[in-house]
C-alpha cells in the first residue's frame, strides 16, 4: 500500500523501493528463482529435454535413474525427465490462463461491487457465497464431470472456482480506499466514475491483487494436478504432471521414479509460487508482514 501511495509522487522511486525490499527478502528471491526455473524449463522444453516426451520406446521401458535417463523411464519407455519438463507447459499454461481469467472476471466484478455498492454489491457477494460454499476441488470436479475434460474445460473450471476469492479480495481492496481523501478530491474535481476507478482506486488495489495472483497460481497448479490425476485434465499422450503420477502408480513397485519425478516438479513449482507470494506480501504490504 505504502508503495502504491508513492506512485503519484514518483514512480521510479517507488519501483526502487520495491526492488530494494524484494532483493532483501530471502523468501521472495528463492520463490522467484524456483518459478523462473520452472517457467524457463517450460519455455525451452525442446532444448532442455533430452528425449521426445511422447515417443514410445519399448526397449527402454521401466529403466531406473541413470546418466542417460536421470529420472528413469515409464511403462512405455518414455523418459520421465523429458516428460516432466514438457509437463510444466501444460501445468503452467492451464494455471496461468485460469488465474488470469479469474482475475479479470472475479477481480473486475469484485472491484465494481466495492465501488458501486448497493444491489450490485449484494448480488456479486451472494454469488461468491455460492461459489465458496463448494470445496474448491469438488466444484471443479463437478463442473468437469458435466462439461467433460480437456485443456479448455479444465482451465475454465479452475477459473470459475478461483473467481470468487479474487472478487472478495478486489472488493475489500476497493472498499479500503474508496472513501480516502484523494478519491474525494478527484470526485470534487469532477472526475467520472470510470476514471476514478481506473486511475485512482485500481492502482491502490494492485498490491493485494498481485499477492493474490501469486498465491492462487500455487493453488491452481495443485488443482490442475489433482484434476489431471483423476483423468479430468488434458488427454494423453501429452504429458501432464498429475496424469504422470496416476500412470506411474500402476508400476509403483517396479518404477517408483515415474511417480516421484512429476510429484517433485509440482512441489517445487508450488513452493516457488508460495514463497514468491509470501515475499511479495512482506514487501508490498507491511501490515500483513509475517513475523
Amino acid at each position, binding site marked *: 500500500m505504502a508503495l502504491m501511495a508513492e506512485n503519484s509522487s514518483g514512480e521510479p522511486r517507488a519501483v526502487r523501493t520495491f526492488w530494494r525490499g524484494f532483493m532483501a527478502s530471502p523468501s521472495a528471491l528463492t520463490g522467484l528463482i524456483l518459478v523462473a526455473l520452472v517457467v524457463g524449463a517450460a519455455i525451452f522444453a525442446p532444448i532442455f529435454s533430452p528425449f521426445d516426451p511422447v515417443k514410445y520406446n519399448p526397449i527402454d521401458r521401466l529403466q531406473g535413474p541413470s546418466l542417460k535417463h536421470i529420472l528413469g523411464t515409464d511403462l512405455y519407455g518414455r523418459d520421465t525427465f523429458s516428460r516432466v519438463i514438457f509437463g510444466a507447459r501444460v501445468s503452467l499454461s492451464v494455471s496461468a490462463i485460469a488465474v488470469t481469467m479469474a482475475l479479470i472476471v472475479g477481480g473486475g466484478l469484485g472491484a465494481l461491487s466495492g465501488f458501486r455498492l448497493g444491489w450490485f454489491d449484494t448480488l456479486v457477494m*451472494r454469488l461468491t*457465497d455460492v461459489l465458496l460454499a463448494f470445496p474448491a476441488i469438488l466444484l471443479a470436479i463437478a463442473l468437469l464431470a458435466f462439461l467433460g475434460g480437456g485443456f479448455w474445460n479444465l482451465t475454465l473450471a479452475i477459473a470459475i472456482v478461483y473467481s470468487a476469492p479474487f472478487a472478495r479480495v478486489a472488493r475489500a481492496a476497493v472498499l479500503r480506499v474508496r472513501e480516502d481523501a484523494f478519491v474525494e478530491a478527484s470526485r470534487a474535481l469532477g472526475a467520472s466514475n470510470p476514471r476514478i476507478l481506473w486511475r485512482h482506486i485500481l492502482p491502490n488495489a494492485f498490491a493485494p491483487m498481485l499477492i493474490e495472483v501469486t498465491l492462487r497460481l500455487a493453488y491452481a497448479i495443485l488443482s490442475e494436478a489433482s484434476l489431471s490425476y483423476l483423468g479430468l485434465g488434458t488427454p494423453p499422450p501429452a504429458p501432464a504432471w498429475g496424469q504422470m503420477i496416476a500412470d506411474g502408480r500402476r508400476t509403483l*513397485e517396479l518404477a517408483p521414479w515415474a511417480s516421484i519425478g512429476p510429484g517433485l516438479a509440482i512441489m517445487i513449482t*508450488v513452493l516457488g509460487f508460495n514463497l514468491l507470494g509470501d515475499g511479495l506480501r512482506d514487501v508490498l504490504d507491511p501490515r500483513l508482514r509475517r513475523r
Partner: protein
Amino acid sequence: MIPFLARRLLLAMFALLGVVILVFVMVRLVPGDVVTNLVGIDAHPTPEQLANLRRLFGIDLPIHVQFGKWFGALLTGDLGESLRTNRSIVSDLALRLPVTLELTVLALGIALIIAVPLGVLAAIRRGKTADYLASLFALAGLAAPNFWLAILFILLFSLQFRLLPSSGYVLLNENPLENLRHMVLPALSLGLSLAAATTRITRSSLLEVLNLDYVRTARSKGLSERVVVYRHALKNALIPVVTVIGLQVGTLLGGAIIIEEIFGLPGIGRFALEGINLRDYPVVQGAVLVVAGAFVLVNVLVDVLYALIDPRMRYD
C-alpha cells in the same frame, strides 16, 4: 448474539439455495444432453427411443417445471435413483457418509496433533533451529499434493515395509483395530497439508499474542514462561486457528475425494467419481450436494463457535 446468528443462518440458507440451483444447472451443461450422452452415439438410438428416454428422465419438460419437481423431491429428502443401479441415492450416500466423515475427522485429528505442538515450539523458539525446521515442514506440507503423498506413503509403508494396507476398508464396528490400520495412511496423506497450514497460523498467532500487554503483565508478575505460554497466551492464540481449521474443512472434504479413490475407501468422494466415470449424473448431483451442504454447515458451526469463544465477533 441472536442477530448475529440469524444473519449467519440466513446467509447460509442463501448459499445453500445457490448450491442447489447451481447443481441443478450443472447437469444442463452436459454437451448435447444427458440422454444422448448416456446412450452414446455408437448405440445409434432412433429419435423415438431418445424421446422416450427424455420423457422417462423428465428432461422433456420446461426447465422451471423440471427444477420445481427436483427441488420438491429434494425437500422431502429424495435425491432420486442411480441411473445404473436403480438404487436410492440417499440410501447409498447414507452408507458412504460415515467413511468420509471418519476419514475427515481422523485427518483433522492428525493435523492438530502435529500442528499445535509444532506451531507452539516454533513460536517459543523463534529464529532457532526448531523454528526453521517447523517452517520447512510447513512449506513442504503446503506444496506437496496430497495424492502424491498418498502414493509415497503406499510405496514406503505398504510396498517397502509391508506395515499397513494400501487399499480396502473394514467397518469400524466390525473390527476397530483393522479399521484404524486401513485409515492411517489415508488420514495422514489428507491431514498433512492441513497440519502445515495450522502450524503456520499457530506460530504466527502465538507470536502476535505473546507481544500483547496482558502477556507482558503476566511476565512482569514473575510467572514462568511455561505458564505464560500455556495458561495465558495459547488460549487466545488458538482463536484464529479455529477459523483456519473451519475454512480448511472444505479442503479436507475435497481432498477426501482423491484420497478415497487412491486407497479404495467406499466414501462419498469415490461414489461421486464412480458416478462421473459411469455418467450417472443423479449420483454426481447427490454427492456434490451432500458434500457442499456439509461444508456450509461446518462453516456456520465454526462461526457460531467463534462467536462463543470471542465475544467481539458477535458485534461485528
